[in-house]
C-alpha cells in the first residue's frame, strides 16, 4: 500500500546546530507537503513541493523533493528554540484526495 516513512523519530540538537528530517514514499507522489505541529497544537502548513527535484527555501528552512518524487527532506540551519515541535511530511498520491502523513520527527532543542 501507499506508505510514507519518516526518519528520525526524534532529534535532540543543541541550539545553533542544524537539523534534517527525511521522508520516503513506497510509490511516486503527486506532491509532498510539510507541516509543523507544536506540542498540543495542530498541524500547520509549511510548504508544498510539486516538481521533481524541486528545492524551496523559507528563511532557515530548506525543503527538497527527490528526482523520482518518492523522497523529500527538510533541513533547518542553525536551529532556534522556536523550531521546537514535530515536523510531518504528508504525501499526496495521484488520484487520491487524502494526505498520507509520515510518522513525524520530534525536534527538541537544548539551549
Amino acid at each position, binding site marked *: 500500500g501507499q506508505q510514507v516513512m519518516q526518519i528520525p523519530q526524534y532529534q535532540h540538537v543543541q541550539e545553533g546546530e542544524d537539523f534534517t528530517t527525511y521522508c520516503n514514499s513506497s510509490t511516486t507522489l503527486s506532491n509532498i507537503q510539510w507541516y509543523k505541529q507544536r506540542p498540543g497544537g*495542530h*498541524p500547520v502548513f509549511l510548504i508544498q513541493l510539486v516538481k521533481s527535484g524541486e528545492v524551496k527555501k523559507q528563511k532557515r528552512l530548506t525543503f527538497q523533493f527527490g528526482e523520482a518524487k518518492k523522497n523529500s527532506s527538510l533541513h533547518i540551519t542553525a536551529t532556534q528554540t522556536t523550531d521546537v515541535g514535530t515536523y*510531518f511530511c*504528508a504525501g499526496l498520491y495521484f488520484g487520491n484526495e*487524502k*494526505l498520507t*502523513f509520515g510518522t513525524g520527527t520530534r525536534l527538541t532543542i537544548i539551549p
Partner: protein
Amino acid sequence: EPEVTQTPSHQVTQMGQEVILRCVPISNHLYFYWYRQILGQKVEFLVSFYNNEISEKSEIFDDQFSVERPDGSNFTLKIRSTKLEDSAMYFCASRADRGNQPQHFGDGTRLSIL
C-alpha cells in the same frame, strides 16, 4: 487570515454514546476532510468530502462514522457509538479547489472516551 474552526476543543463522553464534532471550514473552500491523531502517533486520514458527498474514506471510517454538511458553513463528524479506541485528537481540514492547494487544519477536538 481565514481559519478552520472546530468545536468543542475538548469532548468527554461515555463509551457507547454518540458524539458530534463540528467544524467550520474556510469560507471559499470546497474540499473538506477529517483526520485523527491518537496521542503520540501520526495523523491519519478518515474521510474527504466534496460536492455534498464522500469522495474518499479510510478503513478507519466504518459504519459508526458519518459526515454531514448540514448548511453552507458547518461540516460535522458523527461517531454513533463511541469506543475507547476512538479517543484521539480529531482534526478538520479544508482546501480551496482541486489541484495543488494545501489543506488547512483546524485546532482540533480532543475526544476522550471513558
